């Protein structure tokens, strides 16, 4: 059974069957990662360009590793120091890379919809590695994979996303994917960080973290953009930590075992205490490992569709 789309642009509108297929396929790739020789041949002879127009370390490394584990040839591209800084448009950059006979393009871009635009002007499969505040589908897929691995299912679980929902692509992709998979989804943060229309996406909205914790199964804690947001979206980091920071006392008060996810990189003792990040309930490092397996699954399934 192939995927319905030849691109991975986002989880908004993706079917339950497709998400299920990716998660199930990732299980076998996850198993590959435990072998002494962690390389399999399905993408041998394929060339994948990683076009990162925005700084990224872990997503880029995760994709690169996934591509190499699948035996693909990998072409790296960083926006800084490339022709983009000389004023070349996205279209021209992409067409030039495609002219080198690239089969797939993985793209990170600061503008929402940039990979969607790209998918209309080039022939290669396009994988969205994060577009502005829109979507980051492979992150949400690896989050769902990790939740399922830890808790055995997604359907019926209560997953709460904490932090700046308004500007978060991780939040959006998780909301679309989790709702499709039958989870109860809530968001929590100060009103300045929750879109006015959040409820219309099908989520419950909370502004006080202690109100939501007693029913939560998994908590996805978003990174606070320290430089950008302090003083504008919330008054001070101290205040944010005191009212939204995930601490052991808070979790104990909630009185249940809550699985803690974080897309990274974490700001210790801002959105999450060091103690919680390193605790037995934290699956932050499993997310990193699972990310490689999930991205292998996405690349493999898209390639298989051609």
């Amino acid at each position, binding site marked *: 059974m192939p995927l319905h789309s030849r691109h991975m642009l986002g989880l908004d509108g993706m079917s339950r069957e497709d998400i299920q297929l990716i998660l199930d396929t990732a299980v076998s790739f996850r198993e590959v990662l435990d072998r002494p020789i962690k390389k399999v041949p399905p993408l041998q002879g394929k060339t994948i360009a990683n076009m990162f127009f925005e700084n990224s370390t872990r997503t880029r490394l995760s994709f690169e590793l996934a591509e190499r584990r699948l035996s693909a040839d990998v072409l790296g591209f960083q926006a800084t120091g490339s022709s983009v800084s000389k004023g070349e448009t996205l279209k021209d950059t992409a067409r030039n890379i495609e002219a080198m006979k690239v089969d797939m393009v993985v793209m990170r871009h600061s503008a929402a919809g940039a990979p969607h635009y790209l998918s209309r002007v080039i022939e290669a499969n396009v994988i969205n590695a994060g577009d502005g505040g829109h979507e980051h589908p492979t992150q949400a897929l690896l989050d769902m994979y990790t939740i399922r691995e830890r808790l055995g299912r997604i359907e019926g679980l209560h997953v709460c996303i904490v932090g700046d929902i308004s500007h978060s692509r991780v939040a959006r992709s998780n909301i679309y994917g989790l709702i499709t998979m039958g989870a109860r989804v809530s968001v929590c943060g100060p009103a300045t960080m929750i879109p006015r229309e*959040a409820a219309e996406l099908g989520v419950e909205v909370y502004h006080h973290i202690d109100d939501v914790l007693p029913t939560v199964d998994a908590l996805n804690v978003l990174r606070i953009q320290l430089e950008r947001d302090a003083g504008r979206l919330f008054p001070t980091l101290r205040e944010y930590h005191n009212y939204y920071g995930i601490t052991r006392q808070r979790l104990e008060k909630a009185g249940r075992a809550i699985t803690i996810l974080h897309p990274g990189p974490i700001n210790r003792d801002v959105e999450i205490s060091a103690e919680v990040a390193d605790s037995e309930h934290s699956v932050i490092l499993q997310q990193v490992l699972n990310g490689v397996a999930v991205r292998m699954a996405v690349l493999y399934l898209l390639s298989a569709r051609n």
Partner: protein
Amino acid sequence: MHYLLKNCRLVDPLTRRDEETDIHIADGKIARIGRGLTVSEAQVIELRGKVAAPGFIDMHVHLREPGFEYKETILTGCTAAAAGGFTAVCCMPNTNPPIDDESVVRLIKERARAALDGLVDVYPVAAVTKERKGEHLAPLAELATAGAVAFSDDGDPVYDAEIMRRAMEYAAMYDRPVIQHAQDMPMTKGGAMNEGVVATRLGIPGMPPAAEDIVVARDIHIARYTGSRYHLAHMSTAGAAAMVRAAKAEGLHVTCEVTPHHFTLTDEAVMGFDTNTKMNPPLRSKSDVEAIRKALRDGTIDAIATDHAPHSYDEKQVEYQTAPFGIVGLETALGLAMTELVLTGVLSLSSLVEKMSTNPRRILNLPEIRIAEGQPANLTIFDPAAEWIVDVQAFKSKSKNSPFGGRRLTGKPVGVINNGAAYWV
């Protein structure tokens, strides 16, 4: 020029006329009006119930010349206007150099007279402030004397309340309105579409309707305090419509216009990231569009104007957030107005003609178009029943940035006559 228009439906709101008749035009003037006319030497145009109306004016057009001739020129813009059924346009001052000096007003008027034998009257709207920077008043008296019919920093708001007040007081001496692009700047910083559920879904930074309403509210206070004339450009929100309605009821000199895209499309059109759905103000929610239609019906909205904003193909072939704001509108305005407003019963044919001809001319203090024997012929002729499909490649405008390509419309221009010249579509 010698035309005999046979069996046209003459719709003239000024004289409340709506009847089938013949019109004989000789040497740019209306020679005779009446049924069953025969003129031996005239070119006979059989119209069979097609409408003849006082010439349409689009009071909000970006002609782009001088400075951005790769997007549009006075000639291509006037040709697009004629093809769209307009005999006059107002051109906005965000050119390079901007229309903040009388020399630019004169240059534009001179070039417009040379285009299409002067068929399309071009009325410059001059800048309110020097270089449209919002800091120092432009030489409003000199600009008015040179032929500017109104003042606006369109593209940007006149943001400083003190400058706005003084501009309105000064412009009032010359009986010119100040046309406002209402937008609160900090609230819309980085915004690329309407703030709402679609923007939330797409993760595109939003521009809340409140950002338009705030400036309109302030400006209405200034209009009340100064007694000056205020015209709100491209009104797009339910909130602004309610405030303009109340201001009119109060007797203030407040008028407003709406674009065809704002009464036709909602922000749902942005799904798919088509950069031809990006304009400022942005496409709003369904409830805003409904409020705009209500305001058209009850007369709160005086004029339909396109905010024709040509951009080159390459400029729009970029990421949504990077793309420039604006779409072309001259050649789809009549079809959209007929299809979306007249056929749906929002407006009668006669009130459509008012909003595309009579009212905007009154707002701008332009002479009335009188359809009577001995008067200059300034006519828009269109087929209210013709069905057609928008083909952007067929546009006379130099730019094709329209979200309406492929759309089926009813109502199509047939031709225009003005200043002794004619254009047949």
